[in-house]
Each structure stands twice: as C-alpha cells, then as structure tokens.
C-alpha cells in the first residue's frame, strides 16, 4: 500500500494547507470498521492509506483448534453476508484433502444455495452502494428481495445469515417439502425486480455522472493486484472460476459471464446487475434438473487428513475468488488453514483508485470494491 508521503500532484494558485482526515472506523460508508487515513487538499484526495484489523478475530488460528466438521461455522463469519459460498469453499477444500466425493443431489443443492447467496450478497452491495451515492430508495427495494432469499435460507437450515449449511461430504439436511416450489416462485419473479432497480439507476443521469469514469482500473492493474470477481470482469478480463474450473453442478448448467470493458464503477455495477440475472438463470436450471438421492456421502465419523497432505480449493464467491488452503497433520484438526479472502485483495487497490478523485468519489469507490471487513480482517 506504499508510502503515505505527501505528493504534490498538481498546481494550485494559492498556498494550500493539506488536511489529514481519518475516515472511519466509525463512518457511515466504510462498510463496517475500515479506516482510511486521507490527505486531502480541499476535497481532492492526495493520498489515502487504509488501516485494517479492527475486526480481526484470529479465525485462521481458530481453524487449527477444531476438527474439520466443527470448523464450518467459522467460515460463516468470514464473509458474513455470503456464508454459503464460504461454506462451500471450505468443505470443498476438506473434500479435496480427504478424497470424499459428494452425491449429485448435494452438488445441485449446493449450487442453488451458492447462487441464492450470490443474489443476496449482490443485493446488499447494490443497496449500500446506492445509498452511498445518495440514492435512498433502491436500498429498500433490494432489502425486500434479500429478505425473501433469507427466508428461503431460514426454511432450509434455520439460519438467515450465518448459514452453516454444508458439511464435508455433502449437506446436513435434504430440502424441506415445498422448498423448490417457493424457490422457483421467487426466481421467476426476480428478473423483473432487477429491471426495477435498473430502472432507478442504470440510465439515471446523476447515477451515471457519479459512476462513469470513476475509479478506473486497467486490465493490467487488476491482474497485478490479484483482483478477482466482478471487479476483474468489469475491467474486461473474462475469467470466472465457475467456467474456468467448474465445480459442483456448474458444468451442467448454461450461463453467461458478463464482461464489461471500461473498468470504471459503472461497468462494475453493470457486471453485478447482470450476474444477478445469470444467478437466477442457474438456480432455475438446477431446480429443473435436481436429481434424487442421498445428500451426504459415506464418510468416516471422524475425518483425518494425512500428515503433510495439503489442498487448495477456490470458488467464485460473490466478491471474487474465495479459497481455502488446508494442511493436514494426521489428527482430526487441520495443521494450518489459510483463507484467500477476495475483499482483502480488492481493498488493496483503493488508494490507487482514490488518488486525485474527490471525497465523494472515495465513497463510491469503497462501495464498488464490495468489501466486507469480516473477510478482510478475518
């Protein structure tokens, strides 16, 4: 994240005093407890320096203290608005480590849960991003639909946010009676709702003024910074782990990966809007193809990984590549568990993006990176 030294970047007529401003950790738009120390000249940002760690809970160490099965709830709390994808990345890594094959029905249900989670995560992102830029109403519309997704989760596993809905080897429960009908009823209505949000924002002149050309990331930059997810695809790189290394049921469904070339906040917005539609499409196909059978593989009561065995499993989370790297040591606990959290990588680029923009743009830029501090700090 570089030096914080003052950089006289532009000419001014008058002697200007630089002001330091600590944005956060308690600030309405830092999406949790991010703190950004700014050097500003008037409202122009000369330099910014994100300070993280306010939500550090030592999750990676906690993984070492519990057996593989008991670690799933920890993953809920990493990216707490997208628990299902975290669950899947973790149980996928454990399955890869211990060589368990998941029954097809479980694969399909996992895919459905992950895509619903992507929808709910993107809805939360849109809600907060829009309210950061000053549009108040989309917030409530998004929460209306997000609530329905959370109701579906609640019906399935009892939890709405920290789902804990997957286990190494499959799923804890089969779908409740009637769940698929209620899910498809929601999915049928959902694309019209996305059109409603887009009606408020996509062609709105003020929205465009606030997002087009703001925080432009070039193709080279995204690759250098290791940025993944919608931010990558908003900069014209066509890469999606669901297509590149298909897992669960993704190779059996049809979907498009939206890619937009300009790399600004507006394009990243368009990517996420289209992803919501594609997620609905995936869920619909999965529901139609849903096979019968078990939801849990035959597996030992206590999972043990061989000493020195290691596995990395990364999936396309709502915010980018979420991956778990696990090393076994012959006991039921992992020896080491490292989380590749997309928000952490995506946050790195904020100082670069914010430079020479105005304070108002910083808020839009933080919004467009779609960070969750639970995931950054872990």
């Amino acid at each position, binding site marked *: 994240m570089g030096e914080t030294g003052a950089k006289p970047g532009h000419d001014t007529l008058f002697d200007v005093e630089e*002001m330091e*401003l600590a944005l956060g950790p308690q*600030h*309405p*738009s830092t999406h949790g407890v991010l703190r950004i120390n700014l050097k500003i000249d*008037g*409202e122009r940002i000369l330099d910014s320096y994100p300070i993280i760690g306010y939500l550090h809970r030592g999750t990676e160490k906690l993984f070492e203290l519990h057996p593989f099965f008991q670690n799933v709830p920890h993953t809920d709390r990493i990216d707490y608005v997208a628990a299902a994808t975290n669950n899947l990345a973790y149980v996928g890594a454990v399955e890869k480590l211990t060589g368990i094959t998941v029954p097809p029905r479980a694969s399909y249900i996992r895919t459905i849960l992950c895509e619903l989670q992507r929808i709910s995560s993107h809805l939360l992102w849109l809600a907060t991003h*829009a*309210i*950061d*830029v*000053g*549009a*108040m*109403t989309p*917030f*409530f*519309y998004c929460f*209306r639909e997000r609530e329905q997704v959370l109701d579906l989760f609640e019906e399935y596993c009892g939890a709405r946010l920290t789902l804990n809905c997957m286990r190494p080897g499959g799923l804890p429960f089969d779908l409740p009676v009637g769940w698929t009908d209620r899910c498809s009823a929601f999915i049928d209505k959902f694309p019209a709702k996305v059109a409603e949000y887009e009606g*408020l*924002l996509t062609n*709105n002149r*003020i*929205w465009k*003024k*606030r997002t087009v050309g703001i925080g432009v990331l070039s193709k080279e930059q995204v690759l250098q910074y290791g940025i993944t997810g919608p931010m990558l695809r908003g900069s014209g790189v066509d890469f999606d782990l669901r297509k590149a290394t298909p897992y669960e049921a993704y190779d059996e469904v049809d979907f498009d990966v939206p890619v937009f070339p300009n790399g600004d906040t507006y394009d990243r917005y368009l990517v996420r809007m289209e992803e919501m539609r594609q997620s609905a499409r995936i869920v619909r196909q999965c529901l139609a193809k849903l096979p019968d059978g078990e939801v849990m593989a035959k597996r030992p009561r206590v999972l043990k990984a061989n000493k020195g065995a290691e596995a990395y499993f990364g999936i396309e989370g709502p915010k980018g590549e979420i991956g778990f790297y696990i090393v076994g040591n012959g006991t039921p606990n992992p020896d080491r568990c490292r989380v590749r959290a997309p928000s952490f990588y995506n946050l790195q680029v904020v100082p670069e993006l914010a430079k020479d923009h*105005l*304070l*108002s*743009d910083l*808020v839009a830029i933080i919004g467009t990176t779609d960070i969750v501090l639970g995931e950054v700090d872990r």
Partner: protein
Amino acid sequence: MLEALREAVGPTLFTYAVSPLFKILALIFLGVLPLIMYLVLAERKILGFMQVRLGPNRVGPWGILQPVADIAKLLVKEDVIPNKAVRWAFVLAPCLVVAPAFVILAVIPFGPSAEQSGGALDFFITDVNVGLLFVVAMATVGVYGIIIGGWASNSKFSLLGGLRSAAQMISYEIPQGFSLVIPLLMAGTMSLQGVVGAQFEQGRWFVFQFFPFGLIAFFIYFVAGVAESNRNPFDLPEAESELVAGFHTEYTGMRFALFFLGEYANMIVISALAVTLFLGGWLAPFPNVGWASFLDLQWIPFMTPGLAGLIWFSAKLFAFLFVYIWFRGTFPRYRFDQLMDLGWKWLIPLVLFTVFGVGIWKTLL
C-alpha cells in the same frame, strides 16, 4: 386590548413594529411550526410508501403524534457544545438559518388582501414594495448560518460541509436571483402582492407568460431553489454517506432541531415563492374559462373569496412540497464539482438568455 396597546406605544410604532410582530408570531406558531412538524411526518410517510415500508406508525393512530414525540425528545436531549468549538458562532449559526426563513414568510401573500376579497382579513403580514429584493437578501443570510456552523464546530467533517455550502451558494444565488428578475419584468413591480395582482390582470400565470421564457425561468428558479435549501439531489453540505452529517455533525438537541427546522422552513419558503411568482399565488386556475368557474370554490357553504385563495395557495404549496419529497425518493446525489458545473455552465447562461429574451419581447412587442 389592542386599542389599549395602540394608545400605549403610539400609532406609528404600533403599525410598523408591534402589529407585524404579533402577526408574524401568530403565523410562526399557528401556521408554520405545525406545518413543518407535519411536513416532516408527511415526508416520512410518503417516503415510506415509495419505499415499500410503513413509515412512523407507533405514536398515535397512523403516527400522527410522532412530531410531538420528536420535539419532546429533542427538547430533553443534552445540549453539547464541543470544547474546541467557537462558542458564540456555534450558538449563533442555527439562529441564522432559521430566522431568515421565517422572516421571508412575512412578505408572502398566502391569500388575497382585504380590499381584493372584500373580506375583513389581509391574508399576508405585510406588503413591502421591494418584497422581491427583501426575499433575495434574506435568503442569502441563511447560507451564512450553515457556513458559520460548519466552521465553528471545529470538526473536519463540519468544515467540509460548510465549505461545500459556500460553493453551492456561489453557484446558485446567481441563477436564482436572475430567474427572479423575469417575473419582475413581467409584473413591473417588486411587491409580491403586486406580482400576484399582475398575474390576475394579465389573465395568465407567469409560468405560461412569454412562452417559453416563463417556463424556463420557473424551471431554473426551482432547480436553484432545491440547491438553495440543501435538498436531494443537492444535499451536499450534509451528505450523510460522505461527511457523516456535514455541517451539523457536532450539533445536538434543540440546536440540531433548529437546523432541521431551518431546512424545512426553507423548503416552504422556496415553494411559496415559486407559487407566488410563477403559479399565480392564491389565484384559482382558469378564472376566465366559463365552465371552470366552479374552481373559485364559492359553491361550498361558508366559503369566502379570501378562504378560497388560501386553499388554492396551500394546494399549490403542498404540490411543490410533494415534489421535494419525490426528489428525495428518486435521485442520487450530485458531486459538488458537478453541481457547480450545472450552475455555471448551464443555469447561468440559460437564465441570462431568458432575461435577455424577455427584455427584447417586452421592448419590441
């Protein structure tokens, strides 16, 4: 009792000071304050319906006692003045925001005068022959309150909010001032009562006069007015997602409530002026269309022309206030440099062109 008072202070002082004072106090406490209280409630309710939620509904039936509860809460809140704040300026700022907005209401005719309606009451407090100048002068003072409040709080967020307000004032006072010139040119008088009278005589609201110049001037006035009253999409000085609460970050309790009151009073003033100058004030629409004559409301029992004027004025005013609330439910927020772009590059040239156009029209035709 009034007679005794007149005897005591002498007729000159009574006419020019005591009587207007009583009238304005009555207007504020019986008219404007309840209006603002329920405007806040109406805003929350309307936004609620726009945003698929209910709005306040706990205090009293449909939440109608919510404003009372809010005020009671704000009154008993601790009044915090930060240690490093500049005390006198910190205390002065909220008053500077509220007072001018209320004072402007003194010159706005919200109904016909006694001689126009043939009734007993003047539906305005005073009719100043330079009313329009008075309004512009007073409206400018309100912005100082915001700048001073932002500076005196000694907080960085407040300071940025105050500075944004200064930028906004520079960009929007000019088009607003010029757009007021146009009804002035049309009416040939600066008295607001006179402007309404001119619209009556010319048989046309000024928004449709010298088409399309009246319409353009009205549009510019309203855009600049929204910016002037710090409302969406120009609510930059208090942009909550950027500056926490902008210029009133450090204000608590009743001082905060005064800023709040000032914002809503400003909304009412801007809307009332727009109604008076461009939409015929208290005049009923289509006075000279035969079949529309029921619009003068005289068929309602106990209706006097004065009361009908008041009703029409209020109806137009509320329509404007609804548009304000509608804006808030719909638009994202401008960035402050974009706001200045809009002011300098679009509104000012447009308004100059309009003033020029109306001038030519009046001289040549």
